[in-house]
């Protein structure tokens, strides 16, 4: 009895399943129109299949000679736009305004860093003409590159409302040329800077001590230092590595057909923009301490002759070495 009931219900279920299974293809055949192109590509499939990286574009074959036109849709342009109008502006503003705020704060708190023992009145040669030529070539190019680059990023927000769209476009065109051409002396200057100064910029234990003492900027006293102290080595390596990153990325932006596609250009633009503004922030600090932030510092890159006491305080070991080499400090003529 029980068995027959369960057998019955089993057949009932089977019947329903079979019935459905048999009837559904028939229904589908009635409703579905003839689709001669069932295998055709569909846009939504291709869009969904897009992966970041190599398969980030929908493309095909094209019969005009311009092979690059074979890319049909490249949605990544939207993301790059978000970056350029969002993140790029934010990072740029924080790097530059943030650094300016820090420097103003530092100046108000610490004031101009004076030579503790006062000027000695005699000087020692710190940078010869060639060193200074390299520094100012590179720095001069950097300043123009930075301003013309920032003009691309922020000009239309900051300058265009003031000088009008026609004047601004003319200026931006000039800036564009300046940025294109000054890139080359900048790269040469950078390479020379590396060759001439790298031997004195190898990091060592002495730099750790320098940082432990706050570089004499934050703490008290003057940590020992050779030709370049820990902070200056950081400046050097930021300039060399940042400059190299700017050179490589900028090179692809300058010669777009060597980059291998727009997706790569977007990538290099991101690298270039971010490294650019971060390095601008760092160079603001460098320029501050090399000029108004510290008594006697500018002379090193100005005349090349620094005050002996300044040198003893900031580069004690370097002065000792120079003295051992037999360098005789020059007496300044008495002020009248």
């Amino acid at each position: 009895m029980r068995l027959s009931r369960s057998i019955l219900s089993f057949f009932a279920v089977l019947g329903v399943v079979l019935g459905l299974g048999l009837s559904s293809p028939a229904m589908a055949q009635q409703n579905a129109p003839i689709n001669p192109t069932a295998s055709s590509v569909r846009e939504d499939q291709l869009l969904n299949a897009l992966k970041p990286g190599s398969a980030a574009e929908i493309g095909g074959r094209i019969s005009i000679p311009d092979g690059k036109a074979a890319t049909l849709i490249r949605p990544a342009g939207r993301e790059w736009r978000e970056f350029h109008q969002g993140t790029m502006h934010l990072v740029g503003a924080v790097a530059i305004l943030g650094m300016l705020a820090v420097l103003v704060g530092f100046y108000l708190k610490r004031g101009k860093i004076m030579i503790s023992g006062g000027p000695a009145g005699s000087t020692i040669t710190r940078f010869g003409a060639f060193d200074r030529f390299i520094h100012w070539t590179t720095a001069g190019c950097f300043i123009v590159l930075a301003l013309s680059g920032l003009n691309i990023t922020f000009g239309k927000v900051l300058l265009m409302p003031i000088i009008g769209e026609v004047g601004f476009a003319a200026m931006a065109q000039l800036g564009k040329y300046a940025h294109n051409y000054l890139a080359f002396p900048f790269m040469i200057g950078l390479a020379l800077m590396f060759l001439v100064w790298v031997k004195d910029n190898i990091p060592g234990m002495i730099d750790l001590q320098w940082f432990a003492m706050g570089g004499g900027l934050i703490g008290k006293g003057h940590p020992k230092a050779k030709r370049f102290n820990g902070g200056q080595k950081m400046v050097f390596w930021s300039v060399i590595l940042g400059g190299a990153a700017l050179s490589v990325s900028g090179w692809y932006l300058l010669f777009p057909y060597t980059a291998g596609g727009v997706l790569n250009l977007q990538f290099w633009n991101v690298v270039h923009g971010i490294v650019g503004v971060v390095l601008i922030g760092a160079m603001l600090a460098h320029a501050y301490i090399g000029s108004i932030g510290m008594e006697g510092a500018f002379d090193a890159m100005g005349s090349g002759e620094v005050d002996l006491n300044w040198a003893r305080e900031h580069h004690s070991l370097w002065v000792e070495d120079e003295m051992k080499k037999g360098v005789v400090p020059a007496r300044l003529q008495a002020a009248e």
Partner: protein
Amino acid sequence: MARMKFLCDADRCIECNACVTACKNENEVPWGINRRRVVTINDGKPGERSISMACMHCTDAPCAAVCPVDCFYVTVDKVVLHSKDLCIGCGYCFYACPFGAPQYPKVGNFGSRGKMDKCTFCAGGPEADLSPAEFQKYGSNRLAEGKLPLCAEMCSTKSLLAGDGDIIAKIYKERVVKRGYGSGAWGWKTAYKETVAI
């Protein structure tokens, strides 16, 4: 006001490239630039489809957003145009455009490649409508004459549609319903953030 759009019905396009040629001729497009092009996907395979593509005149256009000199403007018909007088040829719109529309007359590095050129929806530029200066820089202004872009107007299979977005979407939808299939309104999702349901 109309909201002008392009729609290429890929199930009709026969890759004849007449739209490409019509555009070049109508607008006297500079040598080396193709404002419109036809791309064939899965070429030679059973499901191959050809799509005619040009500037889509995007909603909230990426090119306009990134242009460092802000030289783009949108007409009352929502056609995205730009001023070649202001353009500095920097290439940023070319990075941002999802459809590869912006092109430059010269090879070389950006800045010395000349002013950006792209499809104008046959709507000219900022100069006075139908003036010689406008024609010389941007090509013809058929919209000002009450005509639609030539590429779509002369498309022999009526695959390429140009006109008010709602109207061309309706035409396409009717076709899809009637024949029962459609490969999609190519580019719409990316350009207009909406598409025609199939």
